[in-house]
């Protein structure tokens, strides 16, 4: 297997982008990444794009070819592949691009992630998101996507004494980080009382425990590591890549409070990188709901199972903590255009490892981790990166 590096990144603003179409967003993120990497169209061997449900959100399938076309590569005839794994579509697209270079098949690939969610109303968006869960055995009976994570939260509170206030702290922290990120959907801090008193969505999760409905796109350029310095002085190497699956339904899991897909993908990525959780300097984790960040930091091994709720009080995951988590604002504040998320997480880690994260820069960041979840944990990808 060959080593692979990230040589360019691009991101659109995340948010309710009424004046931008699916096509415009994907072209914007892609061209920013291509210019950042200093490559040209003829250098690109393949294009991978992650999107959860372009079919339901904008009525368009076959978006691999569409993205290549929109980005101006229709005359280059490059292979274009659409990847779907619900909210982990972006992370899986990154891994597919990574594997295609590691295998020796490709030298340079573009990986994009996109979702345009605001072209449908809120009810339709909710109905589409729950397709990430088990349609026949969860959604049919009235479970919603926030409801499934809410059940995870209720059980976590019961078993480990996690409090609603600890959940709220995650939203407060991620909003504080998002306030420092010019691409974030929500660029303002929120007081904990506001989170605690927010309209209930699915007990115990209120509106501000949930990531928003967002539009946005992200893109990265991957390159064989031995060729990366031809294009950039500071490539960021992918030193570990892991992926795992689990039952589609939450109720069929070994343990309701543990996302085994995270545990297994982490084991795979740590082993490849030859490191442990202790070596990670910062992480972007999949906080689609506040409880999801608490479970993620436990399942990644940053804290012990059951201790995730205390990570903010203990100054572990805060921006000035020992292992800052979601410096971008996370899905909660940066926004969660589902297909874009897994790619955007890599963009944040790359910016941090290059020292380009401005006010949210983690000092001396050497090794960063990106953790992307599909559904309530049926899919997970983990990528670990280090400056070369």
């Amino acid at each position: 297997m060959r080593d692979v590096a990230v040589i360019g990144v691009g991101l659109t603003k995340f948010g309710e982008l009424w004046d931008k179409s699916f096509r415009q967003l994907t072209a914007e993120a892609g061209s920013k990444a291509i210019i950042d990497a200093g490559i040209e169209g003829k250098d690109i061997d393949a294009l991978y794009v992650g999107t959860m449900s372009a079919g339901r959100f904008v009525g368009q399938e076959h978006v691999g070819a569409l993205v290549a076309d929109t980005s101006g590569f229709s005359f280059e005839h490059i292979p274009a592949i659409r990847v779907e794994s619900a909210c982990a579509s972006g992370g899986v697209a990154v891994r597919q691009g990574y594997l295609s270079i590691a295998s020796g098949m490709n030298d340079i690939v573009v990986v994009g992630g996109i979702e345009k969610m605001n072209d449908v109303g809120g009810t339709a968006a909710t109905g589409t998101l729950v397709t990430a869960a088990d349609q026949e055995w969860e959604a049919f009976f009235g479970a919603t996507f926030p409801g499934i994570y809410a059940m995870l939260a209720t059980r976590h509170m019961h078993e480990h004494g996690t409090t609603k206030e600890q959940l709220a702290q995650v939203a407060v922290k991620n909003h504080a980080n998002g306030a420092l990120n010019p691409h974030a959907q929500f660029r303002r801090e929120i007081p904990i009382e506001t989170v605690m008193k927010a309209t209930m969505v699915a007990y115990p999760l209120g509106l501000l425990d949930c990531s928003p409905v967002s539009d946005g796109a992200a893109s990265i350029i991957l390159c064989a590591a031995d060729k990366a310095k031809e294009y950039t002085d500071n490539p960021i190497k992918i030193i570990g890549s892991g992926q795992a699956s689990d039952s589609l339904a939450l109720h069929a899991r070994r343990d309701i409070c543990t996302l085994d897909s995270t545990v297994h993908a982490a084991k795979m990525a740590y082993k490849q990188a030859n490191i442990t959780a202790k070596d990670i300097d910062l992480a972007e984790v999949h906080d689609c709901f506040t409880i999801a960040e608490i479970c993620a930091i436990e399942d990644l091994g940053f804290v012990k199972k059951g201790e995730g709720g205390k990570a903010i009080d203990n100054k572990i995951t805060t921006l000035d903590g020992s292992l800052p988590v979601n410096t971008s604002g996370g899905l909660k504040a940066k926004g969660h255009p589902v297909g874009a998320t897994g790619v955007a997480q890599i963009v944040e880690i790359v910016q941090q490892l290059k020292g380009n994260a401005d006010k949210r820069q983690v000092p001396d960041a050497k090794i960063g981790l990106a953790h992307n979840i599909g559904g309530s944990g049926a899919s997970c990808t983990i990528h670990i990166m280090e400056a070369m």
Partner: protein
Amino acid sequence: MADGGVARFWREIPQRYNFIGNKCESCERIFFPPRESCPYCRRKSMGKMKESKLSGKGEIITYTIIHVSPENFEEQIPYAVAIVKLEEGPQVTAQIVDCPIDEIKIGMKVESTFRRIQEDGYTGAIYYGYKFKKTEK
């Protein structure tokens, strides 16, 4: 949720109306919903998955109260959804009914009850299946 097609619903009637699961005769584990093969025994279970009716009795493992729902459930808001561990082992997701919402708690014993689950608007199909209620002492 299924514009046009009702076959995908009547196909599931044995499971949703009568709690018919299946049992792997290789390891004796019971599954609900029924599985094509046993994930523990895999090829050893081929041809050995036998129909098995579940009691519909169990206890609440975790729950939520839904306040924002898809259109088909809007008239039921707020409603409780739980994961119930059945006596025979499998866990299922379903609504908890006939009980004040604030009385629902983890560990509560429940039994299944046959109910209307959702409907496709005023003139569309009505879908039935199981919900759970507190077990009578």
